[in-house]
C-alpha cells in the first residue's frame, strides 16, 4: 500500500470511530472499542520488534506494565497523568535498552525465553516491593473528570484518547516501513550475518526499535490504567498479558501496518463472546478459538490474516489481468 492509501484508510477508520465515540453511548461497545485500540497499539509495538526485526518477544507485558505502574504511581502521589505518560514511556525505553543490550546477542528461542524470564522477574518484583503496592497493586483515586486529569465520565472520550495513540502508532509504522531503519530491520530478520557484512549495526538497529516498542507499549499501559483505575502485577505484568499481545500480533499478520489492528479486532470480539477480558479468567473459549486460529494460520498461511487479504487480492488482480 502507498503512503496515501494508508493515510486514507487511517482517516476513514478514525472518522468512523470518532462518530461512534461521540454518537453511540453504549458503554459496553465503547469499552470494547477502547480495549481493541489499546491492543492494536500493543500489537503494533510487538510487531516492530517481533515482526519487522524478527526478534520474537513473549515478555511484552514488561512495557505495558511499566506504563500502567507509572500512571498508578503518579496518580497516588498526585502527579499529572500526562507526566505519567511521558515518565512511563521514558522508563520503558530505558528498560528496553538495558534488557536489549545483553539479550540481543541471543538468537531465536534463547531471546524469546529471555523475554519471558525478564517479564517474570519484573512481575515477582512488583508483587513484593512496597513502593509498587505489592500483590494488591494500586487503586487509583477518582478525580474530577477532565482532560488534564485524563479521567472522563463518558467512555467515548477514552476511546478518543486511545484513538489518538493508535493514529500515532499507525503513522509511525508507515514511517518505519519506509525509513532506513525499517530496511535495516528487514535485512536483519532475513539474514543477520549478511546485514552485518554490508555495514548494518544490527544491535544498534534492534536497540533503537526496542526502545520505541517499550515507549509505545508503556503509553498504551498508562492509558489503560487511566480507564480501569486499577493496576496490579498479574493484570499488567503477567505472562497471560504477554501472550495476549503476541496473539494479537501473530493473528493479524507480522510485518504489516494493519495486521495488529486486525488482530486486535478479532481478539476483542472473541474475548467478548468467549468470556474473558484482559486479566479476567473467563471460561477460556476465546483462548481455544484464538489458539485454533493461530494453528490454522501458521500451518496454512504464515503471514497471518493480513496475508490472507494480500493473497486474495493477488488472486483477484491475477484473474482480472
Amino acid at each position, binding site marked *: 500500500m502507498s503512503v496515501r492509501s494508508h493515510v486514507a484508510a487511517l482517516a476513514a477508520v478514525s472518522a468512523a470511530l470518532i462518530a461512534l465515540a461521540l454518537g453511540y453511548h453504549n458503554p459496553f461497545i465503547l469499552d470494547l472499542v477502547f480495549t481493541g485500540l489499546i491492543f492494536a497499539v500493543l500489537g503494533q509495538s510487538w510487531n516492530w520488534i517481533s515482526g519487522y526485526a524478527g526478534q520474537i518477544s513473549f515478555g511484552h507485558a514488561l512495557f505495558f506494565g511499566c506504563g500502567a505502574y507509572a500512571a498508578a504511581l503518579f496518580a497516588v502521589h498526585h502527579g499529572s497523568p500526562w507526566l505519567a505518560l511521558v515518565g512511563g514511556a521514558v522508563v520503558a525505553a530505558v528498560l528496553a535498552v538495558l534488557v536489549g543490550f545483553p539479550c540481543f546477542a541471543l538468537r531465536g528461542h534463547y531471546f524469546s525465553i529471555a523475554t519471558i524470564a525478564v517479564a517474570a522477574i519484573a512481575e515477582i518484583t512488583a508483587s513484593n516491593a512496597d513502593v509498587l503496592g505489592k500483590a494488591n497493586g494500586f487503586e487509583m483515586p477518582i478525580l474530577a473528570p477532565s482532560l488534564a486529569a485524563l479521567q472522563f465520565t463518558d467512555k467515548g472520550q477514552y476511546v478518543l484518547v486511545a484513538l489518538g495513540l493508535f493514529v500515532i502508532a499507525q503513522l509511525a509504522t508507515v514511517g518505519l516501513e519506509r525509513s532506513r531503519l525499517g530496511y535495516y530491520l528487514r535485512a536483519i530478520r532475513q539474514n543477520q550475518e549478511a546485514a552485518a557484512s554490508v555495514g548494518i549495526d544490527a544491535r544498534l538497529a534492534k536497540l533503537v526499535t526496542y526502545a520505541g516498542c517499550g515507549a509505545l507499549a508503556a503509553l498504551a499501559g498508562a492509558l489503560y490504567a487511566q480507564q480501569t483505575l486499577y493496576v496490579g502485577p498479574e493484570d499488567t505484568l503477567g505472562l497471560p498479558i504477554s501472550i495476549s499481545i503476541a496473539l494479537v500480533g501473530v493473528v493479524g499478520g507480522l510485518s504489516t501496518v494493519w495486521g495488529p489492528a486486525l488482530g486486535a479486532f478479532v481478539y476483542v470480539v472473541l474475548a467478548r463472546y468467549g468470556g474473558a477480558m484482559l486479566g479476567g479468567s473467563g471460561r477460556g473459549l476465546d483462548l481455544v478459538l484464538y*489458539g485454533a486460529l*493461530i494453528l490454522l494460520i501458521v500451518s496454512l498461511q504464515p503471514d497471518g490474516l493480513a496475508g490472507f487479504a494480500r493473497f486474495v487480492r493477488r488472486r483477484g488482480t491475477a484473474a482480472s489481468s
Partner: protein
Amino acid sequence: MAVDFGPLPQLIVSGILTGLLFALISVGLTLIFGVMDVVNFAHGEFLMLAMYATFGAGLIGLNPILALPVVALLMFLVGAIVYRVLIRRLLAGPPSAVVFGTFGLLVFLQGAAQFLFTSDYRSVPNPPFQGTLHLGSINLGEAQIVAGLGALVLTAFVFAFVEYTEPGRALRALSEDRVAAQLMGIDVQRMNAFAFGLGIACAGAAGALLMLTYQAYPRVGTEFALTAFVVVALGGFGSVQGALVGAVLVGLVEVLGGFYISPALKMIPVYVLYLLVVLVRPQGLLGRR
C-alpha cells in the same frame, strides 16, 4: 544477619528430589529439541493434560503410580499425532513457524482445559504415600520421595534407551547430522514422530508423578515449562545428561532460594541463572560448542 545452616541437609535433599522431577520434564523438552530443533513452547501444557488424566484415573480409583504407564502411553500417542498433524507442517515453514505453532498449541490447550475443567484446583482423591520419613534431622514426605525417585528411574531409563538401543542410536544420529542420518536410511519423519511422542511421554510420566504432591489447574504447565526451559538452557539444548544436572541445580536453587531469601522470590534466582547462562555460556554448562 545470621544465616541458619541447621535446615540445610533437609533443604538439599528436598531440592534434589524437586530437581529430579524437573529432570524428567526437561528430558522430554531437550529430546525434542535435539532431534528436530523444535523448542516446544506447549511442553508444559502436555504436562498439564497428563496431570488432568491422572486426576481422572484417580476418580475411578487408580492411584497415580498405577495410572503412570497408561498416562505415559496415552501422551506418547498424543505426541506422535500432534507431530503428524501439526509439527511436521511447521517444520516445512520458516523457523518462526515452529515458535508460533507451539505457542498457538499452548494457548489452545490452556483454553481447552479452562473451558472443560474450569480453573479450579484438582487433586487426586485419597492419594497414596501420606506418611513422613524421619532420617535424623531430615523429614520428608513419602510422596515426595516416591515422586523424586520415580522421576530419577524414568530419566535413567530414557537415557539408557537413547544411549544403548537401536532406535535411540537413530535419534542421536538425527540430532548430530540430519542429512547424513537420512542417507544412512533413517526415516526422518517416523523418527521425528517417535521422538516427539517420547518427549511428550516424559512430560506425561512426570505429570502422573507430580499428582502425588501437586494439584492440576489449567495454567499449571506454564510454571513448570519455564523451569524446564531454564534447565535445558543450563544443560545445553539437546543434552540428556545436561538436563539431569541442570534440573538438580535448578531444584537446589529454587528450594534454597525459597528458604534463605523468601518463598515469594524463589523464582528470581532461577530466571537470573537462565539469563547468566545464556549470555555467558550459551552452549550450557555441559554443552559443546
